């Protein structure tokens, strides 16, 4: 599998708000995190949702965010994190 990003790399979630079956949550769009794992490839759920093949399969990344970066008024601890599994088509270099 040829993956665009590597473990440890900083990535930013693409800013787009299409309708349709998207598995990248609203709350991480435009946010920047770090790749902790590269998984897959997995077929694209945006396409599977309409009965299509979902191919070519995409690399899937575990991306860790500082939770305080995700919310303007985060009340937890500075070192808290949030990990989200994101398909490659939603990630860009920062």
């Amino acid at each position, binding site marked *: 599998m040829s993956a665009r990003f590597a473990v440890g790399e900083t990535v930013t979630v693409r800013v787009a708000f299409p309708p349709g079956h998207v598995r990248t949550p609203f709350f991480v769009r435009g946010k920047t995190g770090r790749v902790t794992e590269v998984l897959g490839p997995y077929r694209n759920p945006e396409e599977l949702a309409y009965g299509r093949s979902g191919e070519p399969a995409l690399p*899937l990344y575990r991306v860790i965010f500082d939770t305080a970066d995700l919310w303007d008024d985060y009340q*937890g*601890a500075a070192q808290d994190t949030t990990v989200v599994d994101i398909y490659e088509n939603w990630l860009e270099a920062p």
Partner: protein
Amino acid sequence: MAHDHSHGHPHDHGHGHQPHPFQPDLEETPLTHYQVMTQAVGDLLIDKGVFSAEELRAMLEAIDAKSPAAGARMVARAWVDDGFKARMLADVNAAAGELGIDAGGIPIRAVENTEGVHNVIVCTLCSCYPRLLIGLPPDWYKSRSYRSRTVREPRAVLAEFGTVLPEDVEVRVHDSTADLRYMVLPARPDGTEGWDEAALAGLVTRDCMIGVTLPKSPAA
């Protein structure tokens, strides 16, 4: 969120539309539109040979057979066997097979609680959960409140479950958005030295494998 208050259940038609023995407790309750739909859709799919009545029965039994106990067994084994723990952290499904547990084909990942990190699992987009290992999720896991707030204020949500973590612990929330399902491998409680696996498994609750609580304490 709407709760299901229905108490009736439709017939399980094995062989077409044969009348069923009268079951007073159940048949006095009217069916809802969606219960009627459920019965009709299942019957049509059987009639069309998409699956058989026997396959449906077997699947219902398989659903009932799954419970948190399978996860608890794995956690207990991981607590006493470092090699198993490493294999479980690498691949829950394969490690489950070592114990004779069928965790299904969807990859399940265990995330380990340590002194410095406490993990919590959520699915903000729907209700992804390691069902094939530990059974069906509780209603609250699928609720708007849990799905909305756990990523936003995990410590407040955990506090509602009676779990208060020190400020120097990292609370790590995993949003199950894709093809993996997640479970927490909690830390072994103090005061359990020398305990056998069955006793250890007794401390492992469903909620501590979701991450909203810690395992039961031996003192409790």
